[in-house]
């Protein structure tokens, strides 16, 4: 295997590394905003795979369309997620995800 821009596997490996880093971030961080950053890394790794398969696979643009939908939903997720983080911060005065475990005021 050669790591070069003309190999599908090099893009897949970059995607796998991004996914692993994002997963580690989600698993270990207690700061809610850091957890959201990990989610963004995971979504980006999925997008790299979509576009890579679209380029090296059938040659049509379906993978790029899917990547664009993922970007759209990531924007919606970031807006709502960060609004929730701010609401939690106003209520509990911390954004430690383990401190904010009660679901009532």
């Amino acid at each position: 295997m050669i790591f070069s821009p003309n190999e599908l596997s090099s893009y897949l490996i970059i995607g796998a590394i991004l996914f692993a880093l994002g997963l580690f971030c989600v698993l270990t961080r207690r700061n809610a905003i850091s957890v959201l950053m990990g989610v963004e890394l995971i979504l980006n790794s999925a997008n790299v795979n979509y576009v890579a398969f679209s380029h090296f696979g059938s040659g049509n643009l379906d993978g790029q369309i899917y990547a664009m939908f993922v970007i759209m939903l990531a924007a919606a997720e970031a807006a709502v997620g960060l609004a929730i983080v701010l609401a939690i911060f106003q209520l509990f005065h911390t954004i430690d995800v383990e401190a904010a475990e009660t679901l009532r005021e």
Partner: protein
Amino acid sequence: MEISTAVFYLIALITVGSAAVVTFSRNIIYSAFSLLGTFAGVAGLYIFLGADFVAGVQLLIYVGGILVLILFAVMLTHRITDVEITNRAAGRIPALVIVGVFLALLIQTVRETPWVKVKEVAYQPTTAKIGDLFLENYLLPFELASLVLLAAMIGAVVLSRKEIKE
């Protein structure tokens, strides 16, 4: 080595290195700004993959939108650096083992699978074709996505406004 290969190495290094800083930095400001490198690097990978429009969208929405939103959230929640990395519940060591095994499995799978090789890849503009696809085959998901965005916008406004109690 060709110059494009060198640029590819550089972009891959920036992407993965920034993602590592996002994951391992103890300072959330460094993490937030390192996301810039990751997003821009992924946009560079899209350009290598011939997806010019997706690269533009990535820069506009991720770098211009989501990153600014995250930085706003970081600035608005002060005392944010107090929250350190956990070592309770799922601590760093078990998470490292799980993620390491998972990554090794993924990379092994990628290396051993015989991927189909394309003969010749033509780089051509994709914007017009993507626009056609959005208005033909993907019209319903496109409209649904606009509804989702509207709902997310209303939800964010409702969640973040201050309740005025009588």
